[in-house]
């Protein structure tokens, strides 16, 4: 495998800058950029001109990740060349309503379902979606043995509108999935948060899928407002500072973290990025920068396990959470650097800050994560 990457800031891309990437003759081109960067009028045409035969997928971000670290308002274009017997297939779907999520996921699965499917890269609409429903739909068709990586698109923390890049172009409602087929693929994953729970355990006394109405009988939003104080006016963004730890009804930690994607002032409810178990328990979490960086390192180390078997360059797809960036602020590069140090120079880093990460969790091959650094390593034997 070979990868070549280009990071360019938010300015029209010069024509020649894509040439080295084009010379690679890649099968896959990953494009992550800010909403504004993606909306550059010439971008799509340039990409098409440069990579006519490749699958060009990606999404908008709340920050771009590349070998050079984190950038905002930029665009990272990564060309990937598979040298071995690896085949790709792309599928796309649209989600206009939250209810359509599962169905859309199932549609994607049906389109990709072929013998030899090893992994799916999924990028999708980041606001007004139920990420776990999308996954559930996908898993219902593909089963639990196909690894799904990727994440929900971001829009710089505004939680208003994201974009997805697929063969049809840029859509705010789109989901795009790339199926990777072939025994020659090397895959590994790692996902870690670094958040610590604190305070009392609270019961989700009223919830519906990914909407949390009440905790311990109190409107869920009130708790956030209490804890955020004056920062409450920055909700939902400021809510990223305090994700929830999910616990089951019998009080067991599930290792899942849920971030809020939005708030419903009228209902006093929190809209989470994924489902929570009704009657389950939640606990507020916090993290320091160091914690988060340590978490990222841990995730990287988990994913790095497959790298020794790879030939050529590999690709580490880093999907981190917008909340982490918010916490780490200026020091956010640290988590990228630490991942880079773990993988070494032979691996190209590419990714974005998302509103929800897709990746394995323990024995389960696919879960929606929040507030994690989810690392997917792709290589070839």
């Amino acid at each position, binding site marked *: 495998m070979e990868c070549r990457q280009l990071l360019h800031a938010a300015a029209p891309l010069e024509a020649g800058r894509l040439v080295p990437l084009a010379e690679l003759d890649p099968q896959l081109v990953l494009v992550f950029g800010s909403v504004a960067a993606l909306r550059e009028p010439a971008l799509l045409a340039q990409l098409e001109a440069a990579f006519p035969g490749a699958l060009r997928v990606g999404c908008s971000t709340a920050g771009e990740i590349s070998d050079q670290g984190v950038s905002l308002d930029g665009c990272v274009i990564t060309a990937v060349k598979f040298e071995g017997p690896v085949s790709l297939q792309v599928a796309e779907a649209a989600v206009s309503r939250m209810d359509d999520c599962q169905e859309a996921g199932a549609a994607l699965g049906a389109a990709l379902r072929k013998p030899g499917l090893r992994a799916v890269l999924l990028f999708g609409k980041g606001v007004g979606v139920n990420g776990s429903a999308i996954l559930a739909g996908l898993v219902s068709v593909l089963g639990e043995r196909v690894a799904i990586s990727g994440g929900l698109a971001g829009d710089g923390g505004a939680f208003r509108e994201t974009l997805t890049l697929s063969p049809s172009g840029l859509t705010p409602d789109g989901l795009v999935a790339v199926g990777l087929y072939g025994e020659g693929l090397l895959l590994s994953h790692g996902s870690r948060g670094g958040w610590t729970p*604190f*305070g*009392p355990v609270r019961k989700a006394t009223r919830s519906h899928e990914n909407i949390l109405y009440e905790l311990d009988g109190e409107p869920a939003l009130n708790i956030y407002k*209490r*804890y*955020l*104080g004056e*920062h409450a006016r920055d909700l939902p963004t400021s809510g990223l*500072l*305090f994700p929830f730890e999910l616990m089951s009804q019998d009080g067991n930690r599930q290792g899942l973290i849920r971030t809020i994607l939005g708030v419903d002032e009228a209902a006093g409810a929190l809209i989470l990025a994924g489902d929570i178990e009704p009657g389950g328990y939640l606990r*507020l979490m*916090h993290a*320091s920068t160091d914690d988060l960086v340590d978490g990222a390192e841990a995730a990287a180390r988990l994913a790095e396990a497959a790298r020794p078997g790879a030939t050529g360059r590999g690709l580490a797809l880093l999907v981190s959470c917008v909340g982490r960036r918010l*916490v780490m*602020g*200026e*020091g956010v590069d640290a988590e990228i650097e630490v991942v880079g140090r773990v993988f070494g120079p032979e691996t190209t880093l590419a990714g974005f800050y998302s509103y929800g990460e897709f990746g394995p969790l323990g024995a389960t091959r696919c879960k929606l994560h929040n507030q994690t650094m989810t690392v997917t390593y792709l290589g070839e034997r």
Partner: protein
Amino acid sequence: MQRILDRQLRRAQLLTQGEEAVDLLERLERAQADPALPESLQRLCRGFGDFLARVENTYLQHDRDEELRIRSLRLSSEELLEANERLQRSAQAQAAIVLSLRATANELLRSEGRAEMGPEVDDLAGLSSLMSELLADRRKALGELEQQKMALDEHAIVTITDLAGVILYANDKFCEISGYPREELVGANHRLVKSGVHPPELYRAMWDDICAGKVWHGELCNRAKDGHLYWLAATLVPIKGESGQPVAYIAIRTDISERKQMEEDLRQSREQLRIALEASQMGFWDWNTTQDRTYFSDQWLAMLGYRPGELPDTSDVWSSLVHPDDLERAREIYHRHALGELPAYKVELRMRHRDGSWRWLFSSGQVTARDAQGAATRVMGIDTDISERKTAELALQVSKAQYDELTARIPVGVYTASIDPAGLLTFDYVSDRFCRLLALEQIEALGQSSWLFTRVHPDDRACLLEALARATQARGQFQWEGRFWVSGGLRWFRLEAAVAAIPSGGTRWNGILVDITDRKEAEQTMREARDLAVAASQSKSEFLANMSHEIRTPMNGVLGMLTLLLGTQLDDRQRHYADLARLSGQTLLSLINDILDLSKVEAGKLELEEEDFDLQVLLDEVGHMMTPRAQQKGLQFTQSLDAGTPRQLRGDFRRLRQVLVNLVGNALKFTETGSVTVRTQTLFLGPEEVTLRFAVRDTGIGIPRNKLGALFQTFSQVDASTTRRSGGTGLGLAISRQLADLLGGEIGVTSEEGQGSEFWFTALFARQAHPVEAGPTAQSALPGLDRDFLGARLLLAEDNLVNQELAVALLEQWNLRVDVVGNGMDAIQALRENDYQLVLMDIQMPKLDGLEATATLRNPRSGVRNPGIRVVALTAHAMAGDRQACLDAGMDDYLTKPLEPGVLLAILDRHLPSRQSQAPPPPRVPESSPRRPSASHRTVRPAVFKEEEFLQRLLGNRKAAAMILGRFREDCPRHLAQLKGDAEAGELRKAAAMVHLIKGSSATVGAAALQAQALELEVFAQAGDLEALQAGLPSLFREFEQFSLAAQGFIP
């Protein structure tokens, strides 16, 4: 600017007093624009602002983070504290609950008699589970209680009433049995169901008991809503209140109405039994085997003359009273019953009466109780005095023995049987002989009579059953003869019986059985012999009938030869011998004819013909025949036909004629002087038939009385000498009798010796349905005899020229074209060449006769143009068989000759279209035309020339008449010569044919006398009498001469 950064900037002297960070940034902005500044410093100035912003962001972020952290810490601490307090409170509450729970549990434990828990037990879970346990127990107990209650409710009738008697609760059963719905019971006083049967004391006692808190038991009678009474066994239990005093009472009752009823029934039946026993005089005994005591009822004791108490009640009393001869048997029967072999103990035995006499008792009993091993513990029974009956029985036995002895001596079998209303036949008594006759054991015969039906011959069984059934119904005499199987063989028996009804609805039969085998056999033998004789006679007759021709022929030959011989030159002696021979021959032939005739009749070969004929004509003919002979003897011969006698009859006129001829012949034979008269009269006249009586009276020698009886038998003649004198075979009358019989009549004679005789006979004839009367009919047909057949073409096949002429003359008058041929072959040829509408076909023609010709032309392959052409037969035979033969040959219709214009026209009308169809409906053509009418001729002699009639037949056509007469005058002599030749040659058949022809022609031309003579000769010819035929020839010739003369006037 963040505070700390701001202070640090001032500390580092980067910001002076009064300066703000923004000022600094401005200074740096200006500074970096200075071109003299080195590159690195320029970059510093440019980037310092950004750097400062980043640093400030970091500080701000840290500030934020710290603030949030502190806040979080504070908040969560508060929350934790709060949670803690909540927990504490909850724990306290829980403790209180535990306490309360423990108390309750203890209470429950106490109530169950279990040990209480101490305060150490504060484990909620444990308490909870204990509570569950207790609760479960309680629930179980309640459940059981509930079930008991339900059971009680199901079984018992329950009410709860208060002290005043007002019903507080009534269960379903109470409602059911009292007939009141619950609404009417609850709130009402219990008095509602008071029956009024009990005395008030009962209720008072009850109240006292229950008010005292005691439980009351008793039986109560209540009244239901519909008024009927029912019995209850009641238990009243007071329900005590807190004070311990009764506040209500609960009544639990069961319905004992049934039991009460049973008790009552039992009492009644006991009473009935007692009364019955008393009334019946039957002695009742009850033997308790275990205690070995027997109870004897008063009646039983009285039966044997004992008074109550006079006999001990031990069972050996019984055996001491039983007759020693009966004791063994009685004991045995009892043991068998006790063991179960017999369903009851029944025995007749003698017991000793108190006065020492023996009484016959019928003892009947049963084991009524057994112990665990099945041995009888109690036996009960009834004894009846049957002494009288027994005596009667014995007397009967004696009587029966006497009866048996008696019947044993009677040579026939005696039996008594009965048939019950269901039809079952049982033999009650059969004598010894009865059994021996049938080789039956008495046991077999008695009782069920199935042997009767199995032993009877299958063919006779139905008859037997029927006879039995009939006799049973009629209750009179029964007799039947049939066969039974006896010891492997069949024997004939006769069963007789007198059948009487018996009260039970059946019948009693007393009868005898006789063995009639011998008689039957004799009958059979006789029958066989008779049959054999009859058969023999029959076969003899048949033989004779068949042989008739064979016998006659040589005889004819002999006579013929003799006649010829007599015609030659003979000397007197020769002539004498020949004469005698001829006479003998004639006699013999006559005899043969008679015998053959008779045998024909006996053989059943004589069949009567059925033809239409005219009685008057027939009588005239007979007259014609017999008159000459009468005249010869100088006797007067007359005949008369009573007025009103129908003339148009149907029957065998030939046989009639034969009888008449025979009788008249006899009369003439045996009369020397005087007269012979024939009188015909009607005996019975019916619409379709008539019985005639013919009487031939003569004034002859008469018949002796003693010979009258044998007259009509064969071979008897009055006087043998007369026979020799007058000839005759003696068979005539016998034959006449047979014929009269065949004709459906009788024959008889009355006679006075020396005075004369009258022979009479009766005969039955049918009347013609549509008689064509003589003369008048023919005359009335005349007016409508004009026809125009539109020139239709006819073929006439007729060999007789005279007849040809006549036919053609008639046909041409009616506008028909006629082609004439003389034989069948020419007829066929003509039919091949030409188209005709109709063929008139004579039957007797040379070469190919009419029948054969018709058959030929009917065949499509014959080549004739129209095989389906209408063919009308012309025949002179006029006999029944002839008609059928014509029709069978394929002819369509039939005419008899001589042709009668009316009849011919009728036939033609039937088959041909014509212009004038106003002719009256043609009279039905008779099967045979009547004999030539001689309407006005009552005199004996027929006319020589019936001119009028002849002309009428030709419709007055003199020209045609002349022509025809001319033809006749030419032909007839030829025919006569032919006839003579044939007769002389002995060719009887040919002669007969010729005579027939002559007869026909003479009839055509109206030569009546000639015709009559020819007829006579024809009769002779048919009878085979050649000699007579020849004898008659001269007169035939003479008649022709006379006719010729008479007809001369016609022929120009």
